């Protein structure tokens, strides 16, 4: 055991001098995390949709980049509940779709200001999460999941018919007119000059700010007492209760917070599409967010965002591939390849969960550890060589 304790400090001493070691120290700081997120958000649409070669290979497009960030916010919040608190909600479509409808209805009847839309959608989702959490968290485990599913489906059917005068029923909420940001900036317009090259549209910039904000807030929550309590509840709920924590209220807070993230994302979804499909309340949306989170790596901060990226990429781009050919030849492997995107996604999902249960993020982590190992070995060798050299003179 003592060997294991001595190990990290020895490794620190070894790595400490190198650039990599300095990076390892900075890596955990809040400012670093948020700053790097902001940079990645800024270059992402360029690499994805406009950069020479890369974007040609990826075949990405601007609107999908925006959509990935929106679902990313949803997934970060969902993972606070699933990955950190250990609660599997199967009804988060209620908060995503509910916020989307709330934002759309406010836009149609009150104000199309994008800020007003996000605030009202989020507020609606938070209140709804409070009520549904209050009712669903009465039961644990699978019963909790089923209760959330049942409540969410209830909202789907309500939106489909009894509330059709508000929601426009099966057709979805059409005719949502999103106003300009602060009354001057049209979100569909391109950002001027270099900003336009990187970010593309103002809409992406608008969503990007919320995404970076979501990362900052989630990261802070995980480093607050809540982060610790959430993980304690996941690990051993009974013990958490018996150290004197009100487990029930903390679980409710986890549920409300994740509902709030879903609310921000859902409202942005309405702004993005200027339309709310009835589908957004359907249980498959709840399932999608579970799959995305687990695929990316539940219980990690950025893993779920990777899961979102891969999922939406397969759904929107791989699904358009007509025929899978061997590169640089005309030999067709699979005709109508895109048609099987669900199958492909399923295979990828099973493979990831089977081989690396901690998801795409787990793969990255393992690669990082490998790099640290190789780096420290190289540093050791370099030092040994320079010491030998010094001894010679």
């Amino acid at each position, binding site marked *: 055991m003592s060997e294991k304790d001595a190990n990290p400090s020895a490794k620190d001493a070894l790595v400490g001098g190198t650039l990599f070691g300095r990076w390892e120290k900075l890596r955990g700081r809040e400012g670093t995390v948020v700053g790097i997120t902001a940079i990645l958000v800024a270059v992402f649409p360029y690499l994805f949709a406009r950069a020479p070669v890369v974007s040609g290979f990826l075949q990405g497009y601007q609107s999908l980049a925006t959509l990935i960030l929106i679902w990313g916010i949803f997934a970060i919040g969902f993972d606070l509940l699933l990955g950190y608190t250990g609660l599997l909600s199967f009804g988060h479509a209620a908060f995503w779709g509910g916020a989307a409808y709330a934002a759309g209805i406010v836009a149609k009847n009150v104000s199309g200001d994008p800020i007003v839309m996000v605030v009202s959608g989020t507020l609606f989702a938070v209140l709804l999460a409070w009520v549904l959490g209050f009712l669903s968290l009465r039961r644990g485990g699978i019963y909790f999941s089923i209760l959330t599913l049942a409540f969410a489906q209830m909202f789907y059917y309500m939106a489909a018919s009894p509330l059709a005068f508000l929601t426009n029923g099966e057709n979805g909420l059409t005719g949502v007119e999103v106003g300009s940001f602060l009354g001057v900036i049209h979100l569909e317009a391109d950002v001027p000059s270099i900003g336009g090259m990187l970010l593309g549209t103002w809409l992406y910039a608008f969503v990007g700010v919320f995404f970076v904000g979501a990362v900052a807030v989630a990261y*802070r*929550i995980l480093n607050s*007492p809540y982060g*610790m309590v959430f993980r304690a509840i996941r690990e*051993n709920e009974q*013990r958490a209760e*018996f150290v004197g924590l*009100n487990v029930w209220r903390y679980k409710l807070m986890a549920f409300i917070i994740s509902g709030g993230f879903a609310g921000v994302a859902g409202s942005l979804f309405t702004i993005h599409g200027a339309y709310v499909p009835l589908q957004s309340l359907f249980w498959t949306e709840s399932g999608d967010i579970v799959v995305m989170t687990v695929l990316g790596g539940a219980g990690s901060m950025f893993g779920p965002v990777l899961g979102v990226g891969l999922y939406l990429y397969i759904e929107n781009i791989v699904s358009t591939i007509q025929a899978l050919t061997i590169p640089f030849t005309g030999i067709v492997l699979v005709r109508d390849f895109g048609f099987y995107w669900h199958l492909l996604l399923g295979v990828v999902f099973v493979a990831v969960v089977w081989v690396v249960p901690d998801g795409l993020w787990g793969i990255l982590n393992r690669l990082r550890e490998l790099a640290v190992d190789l780096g420290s070995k190289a540093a050791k060798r370099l030092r040994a060589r320079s010491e030998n050299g010094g001894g010679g003179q």
Partner: protein
Amino acid sequence: MTLLETENLVKEFGGLVATDDVNLTVEEDERVSIIGPNGAGKSTLINLITRRLDPTSGDIRFKGESIVGLEPHQVVQRGVSKSFQTASIFPDLTVRENAEIAALAAERGAFGFEFLRHRDSLTDVHGVARDTLDSVGLLDRADTIATDLPYGDKRRLEIGIALASEPDLLLMDEPTAGMSPEETKSTVDLIERVKRDHGLTFVLVEHDMEIVFSISDRIVVLSRGGIIAEGTPDEIRGNEAVQEAYLGGVEL
């Protein structure tokens, strides 16, 4: 001062009377052991006091106030802490975090809204956690993931979590169950040191008679849910009813 008292406490499971009209008092600074044959109702009694189970009738008072009707975490907040029979820890968290969770509950209450406050600023919580780990001898393992500890250390951590809740009364449910003789000895040393350093009142449920007789001020003997004898270790040692019920007449 009387810290804990139960009054005509009864717990029935269907037709089975697991706790039969128990009147137990624990004074401040007292070390009380509860012994009894398997099925005597020792664990049931502990579970009633920690509010894991609802009593069928009777009352439980802590510091003079009834705690029947409180939630388990509220009982802990009043000052009753429990160490579990198994190593009930938070396995994937570090040893330090394990202690900090209990210290958080003790220092900051059962619930708070500080979800945007960085936990590095909670110096009081860090202090309590550090002191506790020091007193159970796990401070040098603070950054180890709890599940990587050997079994004996896990049990020490378990006791540490209970201590970090800063209890006035500590209930220990078989703290040496499943331990090797060396681990048992170091745990007994730990309990004696804690008793000396913290002046803690505790109630111990234990099978190992050597431990019970060496560290108790008073022993309560349960059989079939009821108290059949109580007194100092010497009084219990010579009590015929106890020998009859507990060991079938074997010399203690």
